[in-house]
């Protein structure tokens, strides 16, 4: 099904199942330990061996030699596979750094060997016996130091309209500030894990992947085998946030180890490998300049961002939202990329907008103050309904203003003190902050297969993944709505490379795109059903209550299946509606904080998000996405920072004790409001992404609330106590 004209009225609009607060259909499995994750597949007739990774202890250089004699003869050891032993392997299309193979070291903790033994304990002990002689080379690890050497990334990326320099020069009210965001870690709960089993030339891998087809393709490339020979399964994924988008070392090591050991091998990356072996959100330095008239209208806006990555990598696209969020005739954005020899930087929840909004939305708060305007009003004054760089290109649907107004009213924004540092309750300084939320709506083609059996049971098969997003549930809702059956009659099978290729999970495109793919397959099945049941007309067909109806004629749906069953497969293919119309999602975050006047400790007291993101397919799972993103945003505001050892080139705090993500005690009750809307430009589902919108702007709302509480403006994330304590008022 091609989607190149706005969606008309369709069965999804009935809203009998879609849009209803249906609890997750996989909930009973996940709450009883019956959901099977990658490392947990167990065939009682199989003797699995255990692989344990060895990582590089230097950040850059070469392996002169590896001594594995002691490891090979250690108790229980079956095989030792080393990167110098396997030689150069081809790198997958989506990876920047090599996952395994060769003697070159590109980053700290890059995989250089895997030790296979009968038990986990034996493999771990033997892995510690591998001795490596390195030829270490000097690397670049400090973004600030490398900033001046940064260049325009491949493919350019500078943008602009009008004459920024002249307009900024002439503006009566101006801001010119620099903001920094640190490297951050996804820190998902389930470590990367794979089990690999060979049967002749055929490889089966149980893994933890957001994108089945990308992994399958890149694993085949890396191993130098046909993609057809690789079968990948990932039905449950313990979180990803971007770190499981691209093939990772655990799958490669398991496959190579299983080939060498001639047995299925299990490999999980130990938690301390996450930060340096895999990917992270790169640090940024961002300069923002805004000029406005005394009426509060922005006349000039510029956003520049510097970030670093390994050779061949890309920039953190932190200026993305500034091209679209606010009006202003004269504008420019630019990104510069430095070469750093830290581990690979790559996508983490809302790449671009998440760190970009951390900076931009403080700048907007600062500018509102200079103009003497309420920050909510300043944002509303500068709303735009068209792409500001290209004014003939409208937004498909944009209700940022509704989010801001609804949020201000619900949150009690009028209670906010206009004077910073003016509200105190005992030892607590109280403040409120606001930020806009903005994230683009991406679309990827997505396929699905739908089966109908004689019991009237509908089975959906797609390689789509559920990384906690609720895919199982919203896909079941889609099929139930399209075919007029209760949700209990729908079975959903996901995450298997034998199923049609889907959008996968990432960039908040998965919910809208994968359900649109299921919509397409169901539309095809409806045609097949109609034909089978002998309906001549199809324009008035109604699928409801397990029946197919046309005029006075009604037939049981199950009857169409017959003994053999019916099957239909289709793909939603997106045309150029995202080119003719700017598709984005919008929101507003409101935060109230209390800052301890003595210690500088910040506590989040209240949080509200108002979102305008097209049709909400399931308010329970969508709300959970948003509160989860708000929580990660609090981490970004207050605690999360991968600390770089600038001499040796690695992230020092590489575990969950030292990389501090929010815990229960850090997060209050959270409120989420969805504005009632649909976007017919996005897909037949008229839905858009929500999972990443929720994080965009949160950290800035916290920062702005801290400013409102204390009068201290911190522009370097995270906002830890040491950055506040010097300027806090005297304790009376």
């Amino acid at each position: 099904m091609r989607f190149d004209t706005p969606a008309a009225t369709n069965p999804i609009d009935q809203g009998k199942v879609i849009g209803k607060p249906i609890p997750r259909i996989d909930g009973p499995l996940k709450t009883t330990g019956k959901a099977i994750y990658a490392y947990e597949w167990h065939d009682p007739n199989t003797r699995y061996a255990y692989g344990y990774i060895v990582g590089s202890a230097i950040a850059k250089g070469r392996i002169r030699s590896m001594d594995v004699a002691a490891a090979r003869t250690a108790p229980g050891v079956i095989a030792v596979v080393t990167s110098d032993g396997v030689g150069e392997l081809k790198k997958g299309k989506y990876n920047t750094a090599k996952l395994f193979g060769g003697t070159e070291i590109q980053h700290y903790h890059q995989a250089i060997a895997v030790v296979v033994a009968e038990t986990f304990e034996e493999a771990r002990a033997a892995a510690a016996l591998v001795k490596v002689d390195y030829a270490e080379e000097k690397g670049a690890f400090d973004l600030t130091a490398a900033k001046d050497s940064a260049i325009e990334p491949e493919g350019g990326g500078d943008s602009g309209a009008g004459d920024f320099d002249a307009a900024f020069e002439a503006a009566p009210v101006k801001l010119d500030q620099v903001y920094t965001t640190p490297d951050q870690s996804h820190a998902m709960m389930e470590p990367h894990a794979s089990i690999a089993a060979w049967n002749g030339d055929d490889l089966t891998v149980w893994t933890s992947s957001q994108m089945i087809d990308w992994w399958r393709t890149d694993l085949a490339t890396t191993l130098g085998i046909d993609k057809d020979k690789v079968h990948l399964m990932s039905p449950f994924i313990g979180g990803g946030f971007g770190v499981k988008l691209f093939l990772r070392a655990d799958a490669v090591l398991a496959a190579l180890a299983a080939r060498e050991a001639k047995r299925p091998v299990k490999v999980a990356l130990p938690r301390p490998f996450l930060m340096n072996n895999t990917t992270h959100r790169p640090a940024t330095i961002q300069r923002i300049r805004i000029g406005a008239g005394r009426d509060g209208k922005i006349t000039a806006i510029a956003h520049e961002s510097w970030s670093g990555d390994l050779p061949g990598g890309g920039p953190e696209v932190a200026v993305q939202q500034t091209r679209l969020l606010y009006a202003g005739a004269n504008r420019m954005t630019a990104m510069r990329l430095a070469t750093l020899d830290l581990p690979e930087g790559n996508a983490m929840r809302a790449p671009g907008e998440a760190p970009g909004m951390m900076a931009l939305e403080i700048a907007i708060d600062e500018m509102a103050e200079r103009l003497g305007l309420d920050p909510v009003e300043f944002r509303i004054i500068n709303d735009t309904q068209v792409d500001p760089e290209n004014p003939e290109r409208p937004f498909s649907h944009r209700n940022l203003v509704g989010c801001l107004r609804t949020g201000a009213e619900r949150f009690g924004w009028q209670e906010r003190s206009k004077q910073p540092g003016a509200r105190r309750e005992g030892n607590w300084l109280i403040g409120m902050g606001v930020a806009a939320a903005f994230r683009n709506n991406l679309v990827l083609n997505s396929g699905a297969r739908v089966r109908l059996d004689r019991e009237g049971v509908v089975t959906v098969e797609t390689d789509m993944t559920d990384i906690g997003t609720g895919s199982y549930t919203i896909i079941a809702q889609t099929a139930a709505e399209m075919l007029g059956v209760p949700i209990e009659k729908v079975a959903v099978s996901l995450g298997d490379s034998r199923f049609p290729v889907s959008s996968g999970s990432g960039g908040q495109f998965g919910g809208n795109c994968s359900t649109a793919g299921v919509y397409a397959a169901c539309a095809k099945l409806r045609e097949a059903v109609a034909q089978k049941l002998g309906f001549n007309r199809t324009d008035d067909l109604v699928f409801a209550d397990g029946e197919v109806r046309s005029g006075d004629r009604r037939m049981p749906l199950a009857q169409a299946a017959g003994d053999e069953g019916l099957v239909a497969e289709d793909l939603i293919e997106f045309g150029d509606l995202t080119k003719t119309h700017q598709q984005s999602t919008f929101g507003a975050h409101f935060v109230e904080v209390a800052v301890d006047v003595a210690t500088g400790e910040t506590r989040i007291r209240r949080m509200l998000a108002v979102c305008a993101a097209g049709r909400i397919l399931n308010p329970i799972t969508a709300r959970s996405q948003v509160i989860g993103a708000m929580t990660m945003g609090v981490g970004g505001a207050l605690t999360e920072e991968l600390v770089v050892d600038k001499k040796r080139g690695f992230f020092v705090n590489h575990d969950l004790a030292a990389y501090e993500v929010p815990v229960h005690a850090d997060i209050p009750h959270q409120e989420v409001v969805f504005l009632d809307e649909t976007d017919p430009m996005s897909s037949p589902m008229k839905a858009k992404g929500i999972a990443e919108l929720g994080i965009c702007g949160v950290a800035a709302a916290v920062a702005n609330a801290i400013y409102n509480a204390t009068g201290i403006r911190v522009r370097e994330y995270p906002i830890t106590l040491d950055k506040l304590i010097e300027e806090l008022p005297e304790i009376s």
Partner: protein
Amino acid sequence: MQSPGALEISRRDLLAASAATVTVASAHSLGHAQTKATTAPQSTKVTFTVNGEGRELQLDNRTTLLDALREHLHLTGTKKGCDHGQCGACTVLIDGRRVNACLTLAVMHEGDSITTLEGLGQPENLHPMQAAFVKHDGFQCGYCTPGQICSSVAMLEEIKANIPSHVTVDLTAPAEITPAEIRERMSGNICRCGAYSNIVEAITEVAGRKA
């Protein structure tokens, strides 16, 4: 800590290893010590009860309770999130008390009674806490969920037993089940999906039903 063999490494290598990773450096010397000992790792027979069923295992002494459950008994409801006692995903109940199964060796539990998530309830027969987590959507990816549920069940008992926490204001009054107490006491269980707000609601509902 350093065994004689480790002294052969150059100062440069030593610096690289010690600065770069404590794990590699200390495990290195541990490995040397092992090779000098007997060839086969020491193993021990251990008998305990899991979810009401008597189990007997012959285990490598280094096997954590977590790996005994997951790799030997195939009770994979208990999750390995960090293996370092930092995340709480492996929380199980030992004689009713919550314990990080990754931080305790299996052989230390001779005669103990262990309850895992599987022992609380099944999909068709959910424990009230499991049902409340489903109702309030107290999870997303589901990987921290077993630990959250086991932890919350034991945590409510701790409050009932009047064990104070960091946020208990009055140590002379009976401990109360408040959102602040729940958040404080559940802070050893990390949820990166960020379902905290919903988890507290699920626990509060179960606590209210009991009271």
